[in-house]
């Protein structure tokens, strides 16, 4: 197990480095960037700008010093909000996005697993078809369509819930969380249904039942552990999806989170902000993937051995 964790962690390092490198040089290649501003600025201001972003040094030098800066948690000043640092903006938006993501993940896991397990207990009956049809709708209805439709129905027509904001009106967190979580609930429902179906037909399940255990214990204790493995492996990629989903949801509901900052930075061509947020989000995603892989391997020893075997092959 430790060998697995060590190998997997080592593999995450080049990925993080690659992310930073690609992002840095891509942003520098951008035409019409702040570093070649069309606006006429006085020579003094220009010089100050260049000194601040170390533009007088060669590109490689800039890159290396940027690496050093972010290792110390310094993402540099933003371009559009003078006097504010990128990491300030990130940590201002992060708690909101994290809360939104957490609610969405909770909704997704609870509803997804419940639906999937219920459907798997009586496959190919109404109890299977009805929940799985809803799951299919969830997969085919993107958040940028579901969100506005929910707003239209519950916010504008029925006037039950606020249409935008975060934490300022009672109930304004409900619609964004559902919007963000719905698609993942659908995926998790499908994954846990097929996972459960596979486990339920295994011999050890028959043994458990033959021992005279009551049905709910068999399903909860023996079935779920194996049946939900695919769900655990899915949580890593789902986290990345939730982050990019938050771009859309925060834009729709005007939530001042990280996702909205990112989209705004993309529109404003605030390059230092884009650079900083991309690096930050990417590292977060890589780390979360690592975590979900480790949990999956902990639950399923076969994965570990497979990985070790692959590692040996590569010499």
């Amino acid at each position, binding site marked *: 197990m430790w060998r697995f964790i060590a190998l997997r962690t080592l593999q995450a390092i080049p*990925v993080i480095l690659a992310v930073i490198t690609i992002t840095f040089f891509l942003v520098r290649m951008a035409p019409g960037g702040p570093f070649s501003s069309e606006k006429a600025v006085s020579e003094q201001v220009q010089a100050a700008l260049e000194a601040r972003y170390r533009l007088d040094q060669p590109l490689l030098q800039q890159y290396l010093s940027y690496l050093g800066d972010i290792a110390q948690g310094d993402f540099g000043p933003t371009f559009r909000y003078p006097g504010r640092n990128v990491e300030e903006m990130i940590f201002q938006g992060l708690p909101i996005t994290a809360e939104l993501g957490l609610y969405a993940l909770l909704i997704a896991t609870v509803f997804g697993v419940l639906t999937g397990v219920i459907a798997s207990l009586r496959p190919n009956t109404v109890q299977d078809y009805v929940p799985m049809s809803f799951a299919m709708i969830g997969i085919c209805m993107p958040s940028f*369509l579901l969100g506005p*439709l929910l707003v239209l129905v519950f916010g504008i027509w029925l006037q039950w819930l606020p249409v935008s904001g975060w934490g300022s009106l009672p109930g304004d967190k409900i619609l964004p969380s559902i919007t963000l979580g719905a698609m993942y609930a659908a995926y998790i429902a499908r994954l846990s249904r097929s996972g459960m179906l596979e486990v339920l037909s295994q011999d050890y399940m028959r043994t458990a039942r033959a021992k005279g255990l009551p049905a709910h214990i068999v399903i909860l204790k023996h079935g779920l552990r194996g049946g939900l493995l695919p769900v655990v492996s899915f949580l890593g990629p789902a986290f990345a999806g939730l982050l990019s989903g938050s771009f859309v949801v925060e834009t729709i509901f005007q939530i001042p989170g990280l996702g909205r900052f990112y989209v705004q930075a993309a529109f404003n061509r605030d390059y230092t902000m884009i650079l900083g947020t991309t690096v930050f989000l990417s590292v977060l995603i890589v780390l979360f993937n690592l975590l979900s892989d480790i949990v999956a391997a902990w639950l399923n020893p076969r994965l570990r051995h497979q990985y070790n075997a692959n590692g040996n092959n590569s010499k």
Partner: protein
Amino acid sequence: MQQSATPDSVNAVPRGVSLWQDAWSRLCKNRLAMFGLLFLALIMLLCLLAPWLTPYSYEEQNLRLGAQTPSFSHLLGTDTFGRDMLTRILYGGRLSLAVGFIATAVALVIGVAWGAVAGYLGGRVDALMMRLVDILYALPFMIFIVLLMVVFGRNLLLLFLAIGAVEWLTMARIVRGQIQSLRQQEYVEAAHSLGLGTAAIIWRHLIPNALGPVIVYTTLTIPNVMLLEAFLSFLGLGVQPPASSWGLLISSGVETMEEYPWLLIFPGMALTLTLFALNFLGDGLRDALDPRTSKD
């Protein structure tokens, strides 16, 4: 890759024919999948023939008309600029479907070639190639595509390539797994001892036999790609007006949904139903082509 044979000549082998016919008959029995296939054929035909089907232009504005509710002259109403909504949806569909199919084709070509070579050669080459796939897998591509669109401007060709470049990874893994298990079969050994080269063996014997899962995954990739395009267009980072795509139509529908909800609902239905059809077809194909991994 050597162009020595097309998949058609493979189908001519007697056993191959029976396999595909078998799969086809199984697919025909799946009502949802057949519905998906028919719906897709219909919507593709409508979108392709759009210039001949509709008397309206998709970009010409008629401000005096304004937003109209659906009527006989405008079946799905008009948008706030007085443009016929059905026409906009059909033209938007051309773009959305084109992105879906072209980007998937890019992913298909790269993924199959990469996976086949890695799976057949095995050993150190395989380990190196697949480790690269692992690393790319871990990159947060969604964010990179947004970044690419920001840095290089909103270029359609770039959009195709970027999305295609993301989606090939899973394809490569699937193909590699298939090829690895096929490589040890006797007929490959036979072909080898008959003096057939590596490229010819991969192209003529291995890829056709790995085709089932590839077709299934391709069908399931198209809706993903279309979602990605719609996502980017919704954020204003994909297709730019006056061109239209379903994501863009939904995005502008959202702005006016309070007064004119049909401007959101119709393009939304077009996208959702098409994705439905593709997913049903993909599930049906999986059951038909790959009975072992079928759902039940």
